[in-house]
């Protein structure tokens, strides 16, 4: 009875206009302090702008003292905080402006003339654009840029020592004892028994993903799908896969590929757009086949029910497909597979999936190499993603993945352990032909995307919204005016 009375009260309250609701109060934040004058070396700064693959070659010839590296590390930490702080402050300012403008609009909306309303709409549109850009920079682009610099610093510091160790392992033959070191037996060894038991699980997963609206449409271009099928089947033939591989190319702009248990490989159009040569594509496909071969899906599903995974997959997809702040980072999580996606979001199990990711890297490199591809294509692709695509849709590509340096290092180590082969394939005319075929397909998809109705369509007739110019891969200093000068010293060669 009491409960019923309470409901009446609530309902009656709902029927009457109530007082204004309160809003969260934010404590004033102290403005970020500029970093100290960095006692760092210009050559070290320059080295951090190089690609990971270049640094693997260069690092053994560089000589920096521990103090210099530590100074740089401290400087990067302070610079990151300062730079993020600057953009957080700007973002907060734009948020406040936005609130004020939206408040103004609400007040005058009923009485404003069309011109006044249009002007306010334009101001709000511009402020929204600026707020969103500064937020993305503060939350994603700047941290990603600094994470890369720090990872490269790790590489410069640790790789020479690791390289010595690798050479030693090669010299004494101990490298052969590493897990799955028997690369000459690829196709005859068993990475995980019972691959065929996963086929039904994979089929069910596809069915559920389709029902849940999580599966993008298939690409309708035979030349492209035949090409991808050809590369994938070639890699599968030179792998430890004991079940048929089913390849599907999806017409989605995401730079992604994922495999479901039981040999169901999905390659998205965005991945084909992003790959620059066949060895890069083969490396990613090899990685996915590695997941299937090692039955990572099956192992992970023992820790999570399929329903819970579908639910989490749906949640992620909703963010992704609606153009939310997530993007490639979250979607990329699909490469763990349908089950793995759920686990990628479950912190308790994250360690497990990280381990599997490293295993799939190792197997993928082996399969690409065994097929006759340059295995460093895999690293080149990751490098590109790390530097450029970490910024795509404002998401870090590998925030929830194994530490990037670790992943790069393990990949490079595996490549060094592989028996030398001549004439490894990097590029093919078929790949170039596929890229030509892909151009109009991508253009059509982009045109369709532009023609999509939108509730968020910009107000017509406004000046173009202001843009903060920053291209991923550019030195982050171009957008953060860091005070202080750098000390220039020559690099000593060994």
């Amino acid at each position, binding site marked *: 009875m009491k409960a019923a009375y309470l*409901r009446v009260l609530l309902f009656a309250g709902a*029927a*009457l206009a109530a007082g204004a609701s309160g809003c969260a109060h934010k404590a004033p934040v102290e403005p970020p302090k500029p970093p100290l004058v960095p006692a760092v070396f210009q050559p070290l700064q320059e080295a951090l702008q190089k690609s990971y693959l270049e640094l693997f070659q260069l690092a053994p010839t560089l000589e920096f003292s521990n103090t210099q590296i530590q100074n740089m590390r401290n400087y990067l930490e302070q610079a990151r905080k300062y730079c993020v702080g600057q953009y957080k402050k700007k973002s907060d300012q734009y948020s406040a402006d936005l609130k004020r403008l939206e408040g103004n609009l*609400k007040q005058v909306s009923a009485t404003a003339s069309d011109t006044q309303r249009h002007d306010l709409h334009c101001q709000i549109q511009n402020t929204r654009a600026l707020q969103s850009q500064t937020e993305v920079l503060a939350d994603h682009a700047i941290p990603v840029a600094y994470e890369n610099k720090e990872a490269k610093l790790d590489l410069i510091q640790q790789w020479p020592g690791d390289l010595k160790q690798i050479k030693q392992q090669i010299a004494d033959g101990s490298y052969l004892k590493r897990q799955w070191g028997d690369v000459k037996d690829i196709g005859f060894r068993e990475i995980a028994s019972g691959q065929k038991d996963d086929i039904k699980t994979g089929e069910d997963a596809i069915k559920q993903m389709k029902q849940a609206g999580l599966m993008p449409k298939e690409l309708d271009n035979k030349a492209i799908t035949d090409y991808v099928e050809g590369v994938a089947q070639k890699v599968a033939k030179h792998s430890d896969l004991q079940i048929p591989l089913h390849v599907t190319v999806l017409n989605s702009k995401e730079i992604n590929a994922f495999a479901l248990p039981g040999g169901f490989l999905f390659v998205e159009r965005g991945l084909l757009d992003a790959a620059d040569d066949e060895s890069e594509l083969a490396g990613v496909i090899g990685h996915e086949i590695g997941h299937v071969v090692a039955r990572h899906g099956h192992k992970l599903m023992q820790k999570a029910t399929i329903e819970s995974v579908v639910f989490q997959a749906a949640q992620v997809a909703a963010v992704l*497909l*609606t153009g939310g702040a997530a993007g490639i980072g979250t979607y990329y999580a699909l490469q763990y597979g349908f089950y793995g996606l759920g686990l990628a979001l479950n912190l308790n199990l994250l360690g497990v999936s990280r381990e599997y990711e490293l295993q799939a890297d190792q197997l993928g490199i082996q399969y690409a190499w065994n097929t006759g591809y340059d295995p460093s294509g895999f690293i080149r692709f990751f490098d590109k993603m790390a530097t450029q695509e970490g910024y795509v849709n404002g998401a870090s590509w590998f925030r929830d993945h194994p530490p990037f340096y670790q992943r790069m290092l393990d990949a490079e180590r595996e490549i060094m352990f592989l028996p030398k082969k001549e004439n490894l394939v990097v590029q093919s005319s078929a790949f170039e032909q596929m890229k030509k075929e892909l151009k109009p397909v991508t253009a059509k998809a982009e045109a369709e995307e532009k023609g999509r*109705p939108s509730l968020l*369509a910009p107000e017509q007739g406004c000046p173009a919204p202001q843009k903060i110019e920053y291209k991923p891969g550019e030195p982050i200093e171009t957008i953060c005016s860091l005070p202080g000068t750098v000390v220039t010293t020559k690099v000593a060669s060994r």
Partner: protein
Amino acid sequence: MFAARDSGDHKGGKQITALAGLAIGAILVAFRALPVAAQAPRLVSLYATVERDGGLVRGLGPQNFHLYEDGDSRPFRLEQPETPMVIALLVEYSQRSYPYFNDIQTAVESFVKQAPEGNWYALATFSHNLEVQVDFTKQVMQLSNAFAQLGEPMWNEVDTYDAVYEMLDKMERLPGRRVLIVIASGLDSFSSHTLDDVQKKIDAVNVVIYGVGAGSMLRGLYEPYLGAMQEMSLLQAQTFLQMLADKSGGEAWFPKLEGAFPDVIKGIFQDLENQYRLVYESRAAADHKLHKIKLEAFQIVNDKRQNFKVRVREGWRF
């Protein structure tokens, strides 16, 4: 017309002068006959639902309709409705919605389950402000996923008038056949727009609106306990949703049982599936006044005219 005839006719100068004089005279007469604010006729699509004894009437041809605008009969073409439809779901989501939240949730879930493939769907919620949760997508499941992920409502307001006004403002720019489904109580707390603003906006924008009332069951249960003011507010809320539908050619439902929501949603999709599209040149002047539409639907059986009930927008305001 005159100029075209003259170009092929080289008679005497007097005749030309006389014809020119006639032409000018005719133009002046025509000009006087038109309203002052008249402008070039605009091609519009009018969506209509035809009913008989509570059922939808299908298969009518142009001979079964008479269309009037401002009392004048207007010629029209009966065409296939535009596809795909652009359907936006506007959902009340406020702390105040708590008592009838089950209604809202059931309505959204029913919508997602029954939405036909191929259309564009979007989801927006409102309390103090309007928030677009999912922009138009053909994957309707995304609406359900986004709705499931909504956190606790932040505000206690339900600024329904503002939300409907803003949605219509946003949908005005969209091409094709536009439908707005409002799942809400109809209550309004602190909107800056008045009822009159919303009504004028509906007249100006070619969007068919459907209202799905939330909280009707609670209202029925607790009506005896409510005071006059509260009853008045609830009555206003229901009237508002009904007004949205009546003015735009849609329909409003107020289910008293949670189990009725799937049927209501089914009704909306059936309605949309069976609508007629009449394309005609509207002569309505851009004078910010309402130019009323009247559409008659009928059939002749044994030389007797049988009239049907028609749901169509009230008029245009340009």
